[in-house]
């Protein structure tokens, strides 16, 4: 079969960090080619390079065997590449028809030849079974229909190669079936599709070939018929198990927090929790493993009081939680290393000192006159002690925290969250984007918190981190708990399967 796209030795560096390193990808005419990998494996970077949003630091792209330079999305569209982003790029107030012809330069002067355009779109929609109501505004049609509009939009612009970035993430099962029928029809008519996903079942159902990426590098390209879901899960996660640096705890203390049958937006597979029951004891690390977007964010927000459960109950140190508010949980001595340190953890425009003391300004050590007047000298002295203790590299504690490196930003959060000996620490992707040194520091700090009797709920999409740190492991998939496993000698095969929803 003819090769439509070949990406050779693609490398993309951001500073010292390689998002893509020497990646090779070949897509044939008329195939569904899946890119499989965990979050941060480099899938999006690679596709952004293909669509002209990033320029590669090295490597070459060939379309139909000819080398091409894709310097902008407009060029990509001209070359016949269509992209359907995970978050749709539609103008909500406009109709389907208007969205499809949006930005189409093929007009007569300033007028739009509506009838001709309409005919063209209807032909496309019939040919590929892309059933849409042209005159409805986007706000009035379902998510699945919006996706069909996106696909139609790409086809209308002459796409031969379609990139579908996690297209099933927002769809119901029935809509997914519909999408797969459309995909089959498209490849049947000679189009090619790059399908991005980390759902094993879907990948095994729809792909012709699968390329697995891990940590910015190509692991392998396999034919669907020659592999199994288990093998793919193993390849995606990386199977080799290094012995953990840390001694595991087998007998945790009394429960710090326990969830009983907790529901939150139960129907949503990606942003909900469905009947979750779990318990974190004093002096243990409970690791929550799972592919990103299976309810982890909601779990973290729930045990830090940011959101309230819609069903079930939460007990904190033995007593039922009645009202959920971040401040209430802070008063219960719950610490939180949030998943997005820039959006939720730090106030970038404020100094290192002010960020370290974010939760403490009312404390008599740092303010007098009834917690009203700030004791700036005491604040500074304390912040400087923390800077030493947590090895925060900054020009001074007055430096704005946004100017710090990711690792040092995380240390600022650690200093704030761990210095007061919390009863519960909720750490979400605590080492995402950090280098090895900083990662080790964060891990050591968490272990000493555990050994001091703190219960730790570690939520991470980094499987290695879960294995390294956890005393117990719970796997979460589509908001449900799939199983619980011991932290010492964990059964990796079973865990990978559970993460893939089996």
């Amino acid at each position: 079969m003819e090769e439509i796209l070949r990406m050779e030795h693609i490398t993309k560096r951001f500073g010292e960090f390689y998002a893509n390193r020497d990646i090779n990808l070949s897509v044939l005419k008329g195939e569904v080619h899946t890119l499989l990998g965990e979050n941060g494996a480099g899938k999006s970077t690679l596709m952004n390079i293909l669509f002209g949003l990033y320029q590669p630091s090295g490597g070459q792209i060939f379309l139909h065997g000819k080398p091409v330079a894709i310097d902008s999305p407009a060029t990509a569209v001209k070359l016949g590449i269509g992209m359907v982003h995970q978050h749709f790029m539609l103008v909500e107030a406009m109709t389907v028809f208007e969205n499809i012809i949006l930005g189409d330069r093929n007009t007569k002067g300033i007028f739009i030849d509506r009838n001709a355009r309409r005919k063209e779109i209807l032909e496309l929609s019939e040919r590929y079974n892309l059933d849409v109501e042209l005159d409805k505004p986007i706000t009035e049609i379902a998510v699945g229909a919006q996706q069909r509009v996106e696909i139609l939009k790409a086809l209308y612009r002459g796409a031969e190669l379609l990139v579908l970035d996690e297209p099933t993430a927002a769809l119901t099962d029935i809509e997914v079936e519909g999408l797969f029928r459309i995909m089959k029809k498209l490849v049947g008519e000679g189009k090619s599709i790059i399908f991005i996903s980390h759902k094993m079942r879907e990948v095994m159902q729809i792909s012709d070939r699968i390329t697995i990426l891990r940590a910015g590098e190509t692991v392998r390209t396999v034919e669907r018929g020659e592999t199994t879901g288990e093998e793919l899960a193993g390849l995606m996660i990386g199977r080799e198990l290094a012995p953990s640096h840390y001694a595991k705890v087998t007998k945790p203390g009394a429960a710090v927090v326990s969830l009983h049958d907790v529901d939150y937006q139960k129907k949503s597979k990606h942003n909900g929790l469905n009947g979750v029951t779990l318990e974190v004891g004093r002096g243990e690390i409970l690791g929550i493993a799972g592919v990103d977007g299976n309810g982890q964010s909601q779990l973290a927000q729930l045990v830090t009081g940011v959101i309230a459960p819609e069903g079930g109950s939460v007990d904190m140190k033995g007593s039922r939680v009645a009202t959920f508010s971040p401040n209430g949980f802070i008063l219960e001595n719950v610490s939180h290393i949030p998943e997005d340190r820039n959006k939720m953890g730090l106030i970038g425009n404020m100094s290192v000192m002010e960020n370290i003391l974010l939760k403490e300004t009312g404390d008599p050590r740092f303010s007098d006159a009834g917690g009203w007047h700030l004791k700036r000298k005491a604040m500074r002295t304390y912040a400087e002690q923390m800077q030493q203790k947590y090895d925060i590299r900054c020009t001074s504690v007055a430096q704005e925290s946004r100017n710090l490196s990711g690792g040092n930003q995380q240390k600022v959060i650690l200093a704030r969250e761990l210095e007061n000996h919390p009863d519960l620490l909720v750490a979400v992707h605590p080492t995402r984007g950090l280098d090895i040194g900083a990662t080790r520091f964060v891990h050591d700090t968490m272990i000493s918190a555990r050994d001091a009797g703190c219960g730790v709920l570690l939520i991470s999409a980094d499987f290695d981190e879960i294995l390294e740190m956890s005393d117990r492991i719970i796997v979460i998939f589509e908001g449900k708990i799939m199983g619980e496993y011991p932290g010492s000698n964990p059964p990796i095969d079973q865990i990978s399967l559970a993460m893939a929803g089996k």
Partner: protein
Amino acid sequence: MMRTAETMQRVKDIILIAALTLLIAAVLVLACGASPAEAMQLFIQGIFRNRQSVAEIFVKACPLILTGVGCAVAFQAGFFNIGAEGQFYLGALVGTAVSLSLPLQGPVNILLALVCGFLAGGLLALIAALLKSTFNISEIIVTIMLNYIVINFLGYAVRTFLKDPEGNVPQSAKIDPASQLLPIITSTRFHAGILIAIIAALIMWFLMSRTTIGYELKAVGFNQRAAQVGGISVAKNIIRCAFLSGGLAGIAGVIEVIAIQKKLLEGISASCGYTAVLIALIAGNHPLGALIAALIYATVQVGTGSMQRQLGVPNAIVNILIGAVVLLILGRKLLHLETYGFLKRKKEAK
């Protein structure tokens, strides 16, 4: 190291912006057929002619300081209060009503008028704050709409219930001399309200930089989500800053009535509530910066006033220049010529 480089860049920016502003002024003066040198001379003379002219700077700056500091505090907390104009008017209206209706005159009357004006302005801003914190409705739209309502309500008031029964023009009766804020420097218009404005600016600076209240306000303004996760109530802080901000504008309105106009009438703000937005922008939302920016603005106004009288250069030039300064500040990165690609290449070629 990086810090000094940033400061250097900032100083360079300020000099460049000042120079460009002067250049624009010169062009505008030339276009009126006057000589820029002579205009400059008259400008400076106009400011330092005598103690009245210097005092006049403070008189003109007074409402701008209060409204400008108010806007700065609100902006710092991420609440875009564009309603200083309406809050000023409501403060003026309520202050007048209180002053005229109280039986007793004197300091108590003044104090009550100021307090009620503060409350009125603060409560008006509170409407927008509540709508924002409960329904997430844009405070910008709400405050602008409230401006229209209040400005026209004032027009209604001075024609009906607040109209001077003995006059025929749409304005209120005169404030009793005992309840006016009188000049405190003889033979000038420098009144006690100016001190109130300066003290208010100092208090706001202290509040923003030295107290937990200011700390929380800033945290919410810079990163609402992180502040919330950190246990700080977003709604409480939005309400707080809106109340303070509106209250300051309300006080400005009362002072304008009881110190300058001695009565309530339409157009009393001279649009200072809108100028306040620019003052806060120029000041980078710093309360003391707003104090200085308001004084500079008033100085330029007084200076160009003298240019207008003696050279026929229209006073409108002030607002053109202020507009230009704001644009230059907001677009200052465009002034960094060394970052332009085509210039860089040329340099490298050499």
